[in-house]
């Protein structure tokens, strides 16, 4: 998610080859601070709905990008933990990768293993479309998670976040807050994520549209790389570019750690900030109300757990308990809730770390 370009891909390839060296490098790697998966995974025990009674055994294959970012790491963890909730589901995860070529191979392997249902979060939806279609042709239903395939023939069901809506909600919160403060010509900054991902474009478009309705616009927009490192670098320059800001929207909370650091280091506090994605750290900051961060728009990492549930239902030819429909719907768009001090306690449990 954070890495793009041939170098990053080369690195990923080397990672496979040089794994042995890595494990030998620091023997203490096994002292990793993993706190166990279950305690921080967003899973929901099978509810009392009709679909929860054990049924036909289903093998779910799972493929996602490399878990090198808090949100993606949470996606993988949540999927695995949710599968563990079901006695009738076995879970086969392919190695995460940011190389579309490697991900195609990984999915191919899962098809060859004849899993019953596939859950795929493609690194790049367009590039993975053909392998999705191939799985469907082989009779394996595909649950397309988040980043959308180019062709609806390539998946049975899509479930994912609403990037446009995320931008809209961030924009609406900023408009509402500025109006309440009586600011008429605000200076608004946007710290976007990786610019060549569709999701970034959609977030920015939603933000722009929401601001435009109030007659506001973005004064300065810079892209970072979804890392604290890049967030810090970009924000420290943005703060130099505008000696006074009224509001900032930062697309990603992991990157936000660096953005906040830059703000503190510059000693600026004349504006308020809205985050994105919904990390635990960001929510704790919002709750404490001690800094510039006043809200974050959620991009639920629990969606992978829901995807596993859908995969199971599809595999067992069941519908969704509370819906009237006989089958699982073909598309489910999640809601990007705006988390503020008022409702943060509701969302803290589903935040990602």
């Amino acid at each position: 998610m954070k890495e793009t370009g041939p170098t990053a891909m080369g690195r990923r390839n080397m990672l496979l080859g040089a794994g042995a060296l890595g494990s030998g490098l620091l023997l203490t790697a096994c002292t990793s601070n993993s706190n166990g998966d279950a305690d921080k995974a967003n899973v929901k025990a099978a509810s009392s709905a009709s679909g929860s009674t054990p049924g036909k055994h289903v093998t779910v294959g799972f493929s996602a990008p490399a878990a090198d970012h808090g949100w993606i790491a949470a996606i993988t963890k949540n999927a695995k933990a949710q599968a563990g909730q079901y006695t009738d589901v076995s879970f086969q995860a392919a190695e995460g990768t940011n190389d579309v070529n490697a991900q195609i191979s990984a999915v191919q392997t899962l098809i060859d293993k004849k899993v019953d249902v596939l859950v795929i979060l493609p690194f790049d939806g367009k590039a993975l479309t053909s392998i999705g279609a191939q799985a469907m042709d082989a009779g394996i239903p595909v649950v397309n998670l988040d980043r959308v395939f180019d062709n609806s023939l390539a998946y049975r069901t899509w479930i994912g976040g609403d990037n446009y809506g995320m931008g809209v909600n961030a924009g609406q919160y900023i408009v509402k807050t500025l109006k309440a403060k009586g600011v008429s010509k605000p200076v608004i900054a946007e710290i976007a994520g990786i610019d060549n991902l569709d999701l970034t474009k959609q977030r920015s478009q939603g933000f722009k549209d929401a601001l435009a309705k109030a007659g506001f616009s973005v004064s300065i927009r810079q892209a970072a790389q979804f890392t604290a490192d890049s967030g810090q670098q970009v924000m420290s320059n943005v703060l130099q570019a505008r000696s006074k800001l009224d509001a900032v929207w930062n697309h990603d909370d992991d990157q936000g750690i660096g953005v906040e650091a830059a703000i503190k280091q510059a000693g600026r506090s004349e504006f308020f900030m809205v985050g994105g994605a919904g990390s635990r750290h960001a929510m704790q900051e919002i709750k404490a109300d001690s800094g510039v961060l006043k809200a974050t728009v959620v991009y639920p990492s629990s969606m992978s757990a829901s995807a596993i549930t859908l995969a199971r239902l599809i595999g067992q030819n069941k519908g969704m308990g509370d819906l009237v429909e006989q089958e699982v719907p073909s598309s489910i768009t999640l809601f990007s809730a705006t988390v503020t001090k008022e409702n943060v306690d509701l969302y803290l449990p589903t935040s990602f770390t």
Partner: protein
Amino acid sequence: MSDQTTPRPAEDASVLPAQGRSGADVTAKPSLVKEGPDPGATRPGAGRRQQLPRFFPLHQVHSLGLLVVLVLLGVVGTATSGNFLTTDNIVNILTSAAVIGVITVGQTFVIIGGGIDLSVGAIVAVASVWCTTVATQSYGLGGMIFTAVVVGSVVGLLNGVLIAYGKIVAFITTLAMMASARGVAERLSDRQSQVVTVDSFNRIATDKFLGIPLLVYLMAGIVVIGWLLLNRTTFGRHTFAVGGNPEAARLAGIAVRRHTMLLYVLSGVCCGIAAVMLTARTTSGASNLGNLYELDSIAAVIIGGTLLAGGRGSLFGSILGVLVFTTITNIFVLNNLTTDIQEIAKGLIILVAVLLQRTRGARSPA
């Protein structure tokens, strides 16, 4: 041994006219192995006198060119944004340059010594994760700094041993390390950003002295130490000699392997220090810190006039290279230009610098 040394002056002569450093160093070697009375004088005196003219040979002209570029950038920055020429912004540029500057010091040594270190970014990641995760921040400021620098040195040592004694090509060794060290960082951190809660540690990035952040002093100090080490010590002369012609250096009595190994340790130490700086700056340790820093530091070294093949180079030039890149980024953000244009500009600068190097290289044998 004496027969083998005879062809050297001729070899050196072909390299010498183009530059000062390595040529002079290698020719100075006979005095080190005591090949009779040198037509200089006593050794320390000879060393000093031969170093003095090196202040203004061609590669310094290159540095001068970079200075001109920097001034031009300053003019562009001032013309396009009223915020460019403020104390705050200049300090901001220097602070942004601090982390990559420290890494580039180590990279310059490695490249002059005839190697390359592709693992610097990954070392930063693993060192930062180590000081925020494994040390769990419970050992406080000292423990965090110590562990980061130690981890950096250990990974550097591993690189060095594999390259110098394992005889694996530096490019391959450090490429493998780039991948595996980041993998280790991901494993150690469980792919989570560890927010630093030790306030005294974060103050490394916020504390100022006379209005200038500690980070800038830290970079300046390391650059000065690096410059002295490179230009005023035997270690430095050996670095040029090893990079220029390892065989000649070996014959001149330099422990080439050990020296090569030490260069990677030096780079690892720089990465460890940079990790401390970056972790304090971002107030977090994460496996994705230092992403692509290897390219940034190598680019700075190359546009700074250091020969990618080794044997010749300038630390001053490397730091100017870092400042050029940092200033460009700053100007682009001040003017709200997009990332793609920044990338194109950076690429063009690297290309022009390499072309300049090639024209000089082509001229040198004449």
